[in-house]
């Protein structure tokens, strides 16, 4: 075995330039795949992080009947309170919200919006919503009946900062709810749909508007991105963001799957090129194999030596590829990539909101073994044909002799 290893190793370096090109192409290919998978993974995480911390949250705790099967529809009469959530540690990184589909009237128009009552101070801590204020100020917890709304909505109903808007909706006791609120700020979501369909006020004003119990609310939205999402409780249901915003989740999954598809294509292309080179390398040494056969080497021994040769080359390439991949990934974890490079500098609008994620790489350990395994598999497959041809020719040569 020792001899076989030495023999294969020496064969590998009999044409160093060629081996180097093969090693480099495989190493660069594997490094690229490791890098691109880490990029896709980190990109998805960063985009989601940016998107979810702005407004949507990682998951919501709601009344079991609050959402219908189609999560765009909800039953506003189903409320919960903190007593129904046994795990009080979840409160730290979550905030209560009250929602009300209302009609908002300006001078000339009345439009439907989803008015959300928020815990102002906590939202300032946990979300980036206040950063979306383009004009005016965000809500203040000390003032009631203030409202912030989207820039586009304000344009449509012809409202400016300081103006008053009339709100009409249905209270939870079945009565018609109405109120006048003062516009204190305008939100800029980069022209996304939410600029037209969302408005925010403080939670207590909306509770009064809806004739609600002071402790009850519709959603407890968690912004804890690190902790595992808990299971539902008997009287309060956990609804993940992927269920509330399936279109965003599908888009992210689509990009992830596309990245794997590209990786497989790259491996396939490299493998085909390698198979070609391996085939030529093996055929070049046909006379040598023939000589080896004559002095007593069996075809299986030759096959083993060739297999070892490729295995060594693969290991060397993959080792180099892993190091290069790790270096590239580590570099981009300190120098994040702006995802706008893919959109020609245009901001990304997702789920009705504008996001500007900088992709900071987080190396994923599994890619550092999954990619080499994938390449080894393809490498083994590409070897089959050249090896089979060499063994067949070798056998034929012996019998002819």
């Amino acid at each position, binding site marked *: 075995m020792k001899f076989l290893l030495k023999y294969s190793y020496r064969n590998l370096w009999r044409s160093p330039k*060629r081996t180097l*090109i*093969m090693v*480099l*192409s495989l190493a660069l*290919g594997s490094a*690229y795949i490791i890098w*691109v998978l880490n990029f896709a993974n980190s990109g998805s995480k960063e985009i989601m992080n940016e998107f979810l911390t702005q407004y949507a949250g990682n998951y919501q705790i709601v009344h079991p009947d609050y959402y219908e099967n189609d999560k765009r529809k909800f039953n506003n009469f189903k409320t919960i309170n903190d007593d129904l959530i046994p795990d009080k540690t979840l409160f730290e990184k979550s905030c209560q919200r009250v929602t009300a*589909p209302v*009609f908002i*009237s300006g*001078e*000339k*128009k*009345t*439009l*439907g919006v989803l008015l959300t009552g928020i815990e102002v101070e906590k939202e300032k801590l946990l979300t980036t919503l206040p950063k979306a204020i383009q004009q005016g100020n965000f809500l203040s917890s000390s003032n009631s009946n203030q409202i912030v709304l989207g820039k586009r909505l304000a*344009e*449509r109903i*012809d409202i400016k900062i300081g103006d008053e808007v009339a709100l009409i*909706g*249905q209270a939870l006791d079945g009565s018609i709810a109405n109120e006048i609120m003062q516009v204190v700020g305008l939100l800029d979501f*980069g*022209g*996304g*749909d939410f600029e037209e369909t969302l408005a925010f006020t403080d939670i207590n004003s909306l509770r009064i508007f809806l004739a609600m119990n002071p402790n009850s609310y519709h959603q407890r939205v968690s912004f804890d991105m690190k902790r595992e999402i808990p299971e539902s409780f008997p009287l309060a249901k956990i609804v993940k963001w992927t269920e509330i915003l*399936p*279109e*965003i*989740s*599908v*888009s992210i*999954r*689509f*990009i992830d*799957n596309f990245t794997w*598809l*590209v990786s497989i*294509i*790259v491996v396939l*292309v*490299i493998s*085909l*090129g*390698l198979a*070609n*080179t391996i*085939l*030529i390398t093996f055929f*070049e040494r046909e006379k040598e194999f023939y000589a080896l056969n004559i002095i007593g080497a069996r075809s299986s021994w030759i096959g083993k030596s060739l297999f070892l040769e490729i295995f060594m080359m693969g290991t060397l390439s993959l080792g180099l590829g892993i190091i290069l991949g790790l270096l590239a990934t580590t570099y981009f974890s300190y120098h994040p990539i702006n995802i706008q*490079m*893919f*959109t*020609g500098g*245009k*901001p*990304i*609008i*997702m789920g*009705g909101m504008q996001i500007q994620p900088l992709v900071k790489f987080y190396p994923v350990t599994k890619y550092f073994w999954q990619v080499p395994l994938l390449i080894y598999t393809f490498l083994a497959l590409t070897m089959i044909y050249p090896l089979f041809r060499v063994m067949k020719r070798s056998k034929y040569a012996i019998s002819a002799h």
Partner: protein
Amino acid sequence: MLKNENKYLFKFAWKNIQQNPGRSVFIGLSVCLAVVLAVWVVSFFDGLDHQIEQAVVNTNTGYFQIQEPLFSKTTDSSKPLALTDALKEKLSQKPYKGYSPELVLDGNISTPEGATGLVVLGIDPAIQKSFLPISKSIISGEFIHSKDDYSVVIGQELASFFKFHVGDTFVLNYQDVKGELRSEILSIKGIYHYNSKSFEKKFIYINQKTWQTIFLNQYNGQILFNRIPVMTENLSSEFEVKKQFENQNLVIKSWKQLNPEMAVVLEFHNGMIKFFLIIIGITITMTIMTPVQMLWQERLRELKMMNILGISSRKFWKIGLFEVIQMILLSSSFSILCLTIIIGVQSQTGVDFRFLNDGVSIERAGIKLPGIIYPKLMGEQIYFTLLFVCMVLMISYCWSIHRTLKKLGEN
């Protein structure tokens, strides 16, 4: 066509390719596979983007919208313009395939089942037919006529949400041209099933006569508009459209300006594809460089002999270039054949991506995202295929010829 000498060299190059047919096939196949995969991905995204674009323009958006300036800025409908004969004339010519002068009113309905905001579109039923096939998508009742009074066509989603049927009436609440709160009883003449659920829930159609009567409080017999969504072949006519309406106190917006979320999705796909193509290009060039170089270097003795016989380096380059041309012709023909078959079949059958969301249809930014994607084979892809094959083979061959001739010179 070729001079005698070139003819001979061309033949010689062909024989060289045939000298080791297995290897030549292998090289050609490597390039072909990479090209087929790359172009397939491109055509897949072209298909997806085309479907997204279609879905957006069919949500009453059109490829372009000609908007009255005040409406364009604030969606204030109170100052509509008249559809003049000159405008009609312009819109009936190329590049326009259809248009619909629309008056837009934001209203709402409130019933025991719930309340929702609506966009009430005042249309001319006859002209509208050329723009969107709503009249052909009626599942119950019939489409409105220009002389109907207070009749409306609503979407299936709205009907099922409020349990409405044909012949039912409902109260539409809105603010009229003076800003006064008004309510009108409208009767449902038809129910359509078209585009996404959010589209069906949001848009209702009435004729211009009713719209003008309830909002402007008078009907002057003219066709008015706040906006005219127009259908063209695609967005490429943007320059032409803008030029036609410049200095006319009208605002032209493309669907990308009207639905920026989906426009960015398309830009993102475009960026990803470019990145992918660069990677594939580098990979395939690197991987075929070695076999091509070996192919040339093993002919070193033969080249030496020919060199002794008086053949210059210039002629070796010529042979090499003829070899590349032949390889390009072979690889690109095979690639184009494969692509035409694969994409031709898949553009009919589609590629099902519904498994990504357990078969549930997804709506984003008001449009229904396609679950089955139909790859699109376009002329540009064929040019691109040729370009890609040329580039990859040229780089590999030129590098290999250069290295081999350098070695020959050293010897």
